[in-house]
């Protein structure tokens, strides 16, 4: 992670140029959305979470230490917002994307078309992620999609490196089993 690329924009925002925050949003929106989406597995909620996270980041920008990594700092906000969002949500089971994944029929997939396969993989991953808890989904997302180190993930989640290792190992095992079993089901239906 480049810790300096956001600093000029942050300084501009602190000098009163709110519009400079647009650059920060553009830089981080996709990765932040992906993290929130992987944790809550719902696009509408993920958008709500990252909007909330960007607002929190803007309001606390004056407290940000310029010698630290903005990405780590911001990801910590996104991660905590996502986890606390799900904790406060009364009905954690209603999930549009998960429902969609359940309704998706394996026999309808044309494996020869790249787009269909990639959509199929997306659903498989979504289903497998559903077998993990909120925190584990966040860790998996940070590790695989963002390719962060264990130290960086520990800094974001507030967990120790050894705990991250344990959770990652457990999550990988669960996900691998889920993905393998889905693949086997796919072969059997053909």
């Amino acid at each position, binding site marked *: 992670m480049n810790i300096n690329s956001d600093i000029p924009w942050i300084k501009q925002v602190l000098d009163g140029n709110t519009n400079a925050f647009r650059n920060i949003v553009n830089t981080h929106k996709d990765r932040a959305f992906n993290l929130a989406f992987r944790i809550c597995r719902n696009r509408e909620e993920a958008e709500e979470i990252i909007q909330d996270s960007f607002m929190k980041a803007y309001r606390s920008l004056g407290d940000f230490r310029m010698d630290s990594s903005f990405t780590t700092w911001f990801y910590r906000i996104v991660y905590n917002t996502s986890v606390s969002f799900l904790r406060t949500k009364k009905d954690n089971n209603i999930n549009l994307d998960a429902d969609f994944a359940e309704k998706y029929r394996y026999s309808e997939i044309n494996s020869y078309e790249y787009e269909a396969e990639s959509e199929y993989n*997306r659903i498989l991953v979504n289903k497998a992620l559903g077998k993990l808890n909120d925190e584990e989904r966040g860790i998996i997302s940070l590790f*695989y999609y963002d390719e962060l180190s264990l130290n960086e993930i520990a800094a974001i989640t507030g967990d120790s490196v050894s705990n991250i*290792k344990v959770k990652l190992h457990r999550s990988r095992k669960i996900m691998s089993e889920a993905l393998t079993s889905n693949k086997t089901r796919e072969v059997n239906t053909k």
Partner: protein
Amino acid sequence: MNDSNEFRDDLLKRYLNKESIEKAPEGFTERMMNQLMTEPAYTPEKQAKKRISAIPLVSLIITIILILLAVFAGKTEHAGTNILLTGLLKSINISWPVHIPDLSGFTVSDITVYVMSLSILLLVFDLALSKYFRNKIR
């Protein structure tokens, strides 16, 4: 990290990679900025005030430390701190407005003289800090 690379090189890497990230919806930046524009903008003065507010706190801490140091120095005869404080005051080479008793015979009432003297020193220190912070803000 080496230990993490071995984790990453597995089945999941095929499904979970940078190319397959879920992207933010179209028009997200515009919606975000519209929402953000309702927030009060940062002003440089606001930031400056926040940083300057740290000065009294730093001064207070230093004052307390120096007073405690003077109290303990007075209570302990021939203590290391006592010698240190005497040396420090001598090295500053200020002609004190009043007679300063020997530090080895320090009593609580004599501390007042030192507190007053230290207050003047702190005032100078305070001004220096203020100037430093102002320059840093600019």
